[in-house]
């Protein structure tokens, strides 16, 4: 995930915990994956990581991120704008017919 820093201009659940403005560097999404790591950088929180799936994510206005704050076991949720440089989606080419005749037999 590219580490482009960008400010988000939405109120965040995170500010309940930190009483700070929030900054999100990277996000993406899915179970089976590790938690996103959250680092404090000055008065910002940085979410970093990658996910294999994010149902509906590419057409969403907002994305919910969850991660664990570094050095703690605290899980933090936040809503962020999906359309920002800190969030990038891969383009997966899904085979239209993954089965061959041999598979079906």
């Amino acid at each position: 995930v590219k580490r482009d820093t960008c400010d988000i201009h939405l109120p965040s659940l995170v500010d309940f915990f930190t009483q700070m403005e929030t900054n999100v560097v990277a996000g993406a999404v899915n179970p089976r994956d590790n938690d996103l790591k959250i680092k404090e950088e000055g008065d910002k929180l940085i979410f970093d990581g990658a996910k294999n799936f994010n149902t509906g994510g590419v057409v969403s206005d907002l994305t919910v991120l969850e991660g664990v704050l570094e050095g703690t076991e605290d899980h933090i949720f936040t809503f962020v704008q999906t359309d920002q440089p800190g969030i990038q989606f891969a383009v997966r080419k899904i085979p239209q017919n993954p089965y061959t005749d041999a598979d079906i037999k």
Partner: protein
Amino acid sequence: MATQTVISSDGNGVKRPHALVSSDTPREYSDPSVYDIYHQKFNSDGNPTSTEGWLERARTVSQILGEDAPARDIANLSPKAEVSLLKSAGLLKVLGPQKYGGGGQTWDVAYKVIREVAKGDGSLGMLLGYHLLWSTTANVVGNEEQKERFQKLIIENNYFVGGKSSK
């Protein structure tokens, strides 16, 4: 068309390849204007005001999506148009507080709405279900102030919410 392996960090500093990622192919979206006639109708009708009205609205959307669901599935476009139909039909707001313009319906009605949409297009029923879950995250993990703030933000803007948490 070159398919290139893209390596990404998983947050633990572990690098791994993403299979089947084509970095030179732009993502393709469906076009919301294909549903213009329905956007206009829903806008002039306004959002439903009763439980039966919400279920009827869901059946209408299901019928529209059901007309060409298999063809759209094969076309494999990212569903910008389909989500715009959920938006104009008001279905993203079925659970939202009425004071912010939502339907104020309960989860049992929301699940019926999801099921109706899924009868016509299973994929869009799933997206609606995910949105309704994610859009109410703050109701579950937030405090009273956050719950109000995020309901207001999401419902007044008619936002579609995606997301992901692990474990």
